[in-house]
């Protein structure tokens, strides 16, 4: 068997294993969905009027349109925390040692986690998106091409954060540590343009909001779904995603290939 078909076959076996875990124990995935959904409802129904006035919108529906792109990307950040937790939990299992002594594709264990996690992130985004539509979010005048681009951006962003989360899972000795290590994935969107525009923030804070992966991705998604100005944000978010994906990949590969303790 060629090494590529070995990689594909073993990785899909590992993917099936991870999806089986997720299907049998869905509580972790579902719990992680609660954060973005609760924030969405909180900011729309409790703070909605004030927030809407703050961005110069006419009513609450203007703020729904503003907040949803950020919430969708935050959903990805939230689901990859689950990835870090399940990777670190998995690494403490004897079965991983067994995999390492078998003549299988070396990376398949990790690839199975990554693909499974991206699939879960996309499913989560669809579920949260459905909630957003239910409370009145509408993507005005987006073309099919823009929809596809938005979907592509979400997948790429999920892939990038997943690789980073896998690395975080690999360096964490247990699930609690993994959950703590992956905390920035949930915190960063709070410090981005998800809830308020960057230029409405204090001047000293603006660089923190601006030079991080979530803000350009949110601005790009907003532009694709709602027709706002994208500017350089499209390229910047692609660069962030590719950079993080490569970094996370190399980090994870190095960690996984070193001798286990």
């Amino acid at each position, binding site marked *: 068997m060629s090494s590529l078909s070995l990689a594909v076959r*073993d990785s899909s076996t590992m993917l099936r294993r991870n999806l089986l875990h997720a299907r049998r124990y869905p509580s972790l995935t579902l719990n992680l969905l609660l954060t973005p959904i609760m924030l969405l409802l909180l900011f729309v129904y409790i703070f909605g009027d004030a927030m809407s006035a703050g961005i110069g919108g006419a009513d609450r529906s203007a703020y729904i349109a503003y907040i949803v792109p950020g919430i969708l990307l935050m959903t990805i950040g939230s689901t990859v925390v689950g990835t870090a937790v399940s990777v670190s939990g998995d690494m403490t299992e004897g079965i991983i040692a*067994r995999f390492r002594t078998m003549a299988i594709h070396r990376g398949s264990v990790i690839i199975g986690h990554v693909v499974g996690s991206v699939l879960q992130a996309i499913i989560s985004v669809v579920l949260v998106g459905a909630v957003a539509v239910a409370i009145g979010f509408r993507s005005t005048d987006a073309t099919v091409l823009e929809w596809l681009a938005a979907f592509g951006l979400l997948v790429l962003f999920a892939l990038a954060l997943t690789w980073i989360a896998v690395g975080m899972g690999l360096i964490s000795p247990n699930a609690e540590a993994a959950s703590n290590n992956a905390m920035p994935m949930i915190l960063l969107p709070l410090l981005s343009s998800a809830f308020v525009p960057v230029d409405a923030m204090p001047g000293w804070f603006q660089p923190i909001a601006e030079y991080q992966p979530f803000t350009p991705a949110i601005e790009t998604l907003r532009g694709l779904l709602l027709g706002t100005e994208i500017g350089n944000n499209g390229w910047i978010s692609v660069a962030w995603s590719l950079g993080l994906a490569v970094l996370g990949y190399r980090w994870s590969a190095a960690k996984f290939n070193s001798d286990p303790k």
Partner: protein
Amino acid sequence: MTSLAIAANGLRKSYGDKVVLDGIDLSVPEGTVFSLLGPNGAGKTTAVKILSTLITADAGEIRVGGHDLATDPQAVRAAIGVTGQFSAVDGLITGEENMLLMADLHHLPRAEGRRVAAELLERFDLTEAAKKPASTYSGGMKRRLDIAMTLVGDPRIIFLDEPTTGLDPRSRHNMWGIIRQLVSGGVSVFLTTQYLEEADELADRIAVLSDGKIAAEGSADELKRLIPGGHVRLRFTDPAAYQSAASTLREVARDDEALALQIPSDGSQRELRSILDWLSVANIEADELTVHTPDLDDVFFALTGGADIPHQPNQPKENVR
């Protein structure tokens, strides 16, 4: 000439300052059981981890199944099966799913994978529990599932790292039966254990690992011959009878507190009869006579720096036989 399933020369591994394996040599002929015996922390598990490609050695030439471990680890992996000390089963999925996972990773066609999985589940008495999550299994069941998973790929060399640690006596005897079955099918087994009885029961050759070095190697009988051990023990209830017997027999080892005498013996019927004859002639009648044969415990304690060899305090070496 039989070829070697495992051959290691100058195997070395340290973690920081701590030397775990200090240049050990191992050779395991095909189709035999080799047991690495040692106390906790002697380096047994480290040796298994290295030989099974899980971690890398600091130095040493190692060939497993004829393949060089350093240059062709994938070929080694294709030849071996490993059952570690901690059960290597996926607790979140069922026993059957664990088996099918192994079948998929060995690239068996679907139908064959199902057949092999069902056969092994049956053979290891797990058919009834096959649809339950492995995390709900008892210790013995997990260990059986673990071995069943190892056998899916039909490996020719199997590493068993303390396969019976923590099992109850019945499960332990079942595991021994399983190991004997494997060997009768021509499989080579590398077994680590801290139970001397287990090595004695199963192994063709035994190496005693102590402080990262092989303290002794040989068959169980050869190892037992290395140290004194066999004796006949006479115990008396009446101190006067004990004193008179002790002065009559003179050369024997005394245990004044227990009122017991020890006469060196190899435990054979011939020697026993001559001892009994000697006792009748000397008119000595003990209240209790027991025969002690040397066992691996004696060897183990003698070789691994355990303080005293049990059963035979103060026995001078020249008294043996």
